[in-house]
């Protein structure tokens, strides 16, 4: 059972990564084209992903007593405060600068998009700076 739980995380991530590669989101140029309104494909990606995730998040806790491999259903609670919005604004500036976000930065390595290693290095550094100097709550 325990091994199965790890396999479940690996398979979930793999579906996610396969989808990122298929939708070409691991190409920063495609994301930048969206931000410049040249190609609105990213909206289809986001819409498709939210649609399926919404069904799972809303239906599973109503139809199942607990997750199929045990444990409990988590609930995501986002907080509306200055950190959430200021962080989002800073994140967006980085996203607009390079066309990379965390998921594609990781997944892109599987498709041999090696320059993304530089972005990964930056993301790890940024995450460290946040935890080191602005730990907050």
């Amino acid at each position, binding site marked *: 059972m325990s091994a199965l739980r790890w396999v479940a995380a690996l398979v*979930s991530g793999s579906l996610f990564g396969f989808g990122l*590669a298929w939708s070409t989101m691991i190409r920063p140029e495609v994301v930048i084209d969206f931000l410049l309104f040249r190609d609105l494909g990213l909206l289809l990606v986001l819409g498709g992903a939210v649609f*399926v995730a919404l069904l799972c998040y809303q239906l599973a806790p109503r139809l199942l007593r607990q*997750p199929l491999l045990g444990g409990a259903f988590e609930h995501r609670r986002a907080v509306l405060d200055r950190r959430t919005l200021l962080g989002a604004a800073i*994140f967006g500036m980085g996203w607009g600068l390079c066309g990379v*976000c965390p998921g594609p930065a990781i997944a892109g390595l599987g498709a041999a998009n090696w320059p993304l290693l530089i972005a990964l290095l*930056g993301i790890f550094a940024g995450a*460290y700076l946040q935890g080191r100097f602005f730990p907050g709550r």
Partner: protein
Amino acid sequence: MIADFFPQGMTHYLMGGLLIGAGVGTLFVLRGLIGGTSTFFTSTWSYVSSRPFFQQGRFVGTRGWRAVYAAGLVLGAAVFYLLFGEAFQTAVPAWRLLVGGVLIGFGARLSNGCTAGHGICGLASLQLPSLLAVLTFLGTAILVAHVMLWIGVAA
């Protein structure tokens, strides 16, 4: 008319998006976990930093599955690449990837979510703060991308 907005076509975007949602959904149905991706970049620091912030239970207790989930992202993209892909390496200059990366890591962790955490998981959880976060980062990203274009910095 609609095709003008999708010069590369629509199918691969939609299919890819549905699969991304299936990955997030599978993690939830099987294990009850909310699969954002930016927390991985903080929880992984808990392996090497003894600072109390990184040693919190929400990072130490989830770093294992988050690392496996991240490995899955690489694996899934590799499978696609081996089956259908052509080699592609981004031409975005290194300094943009590095500076952009630092802003992404810092901002996403300050905000507690990125395009996956707020954009997919947050919206699918019907969280209003996540919707506002999405609109905020879309706004600043569109602004920065246009400024880079106007001042003539190549993508």
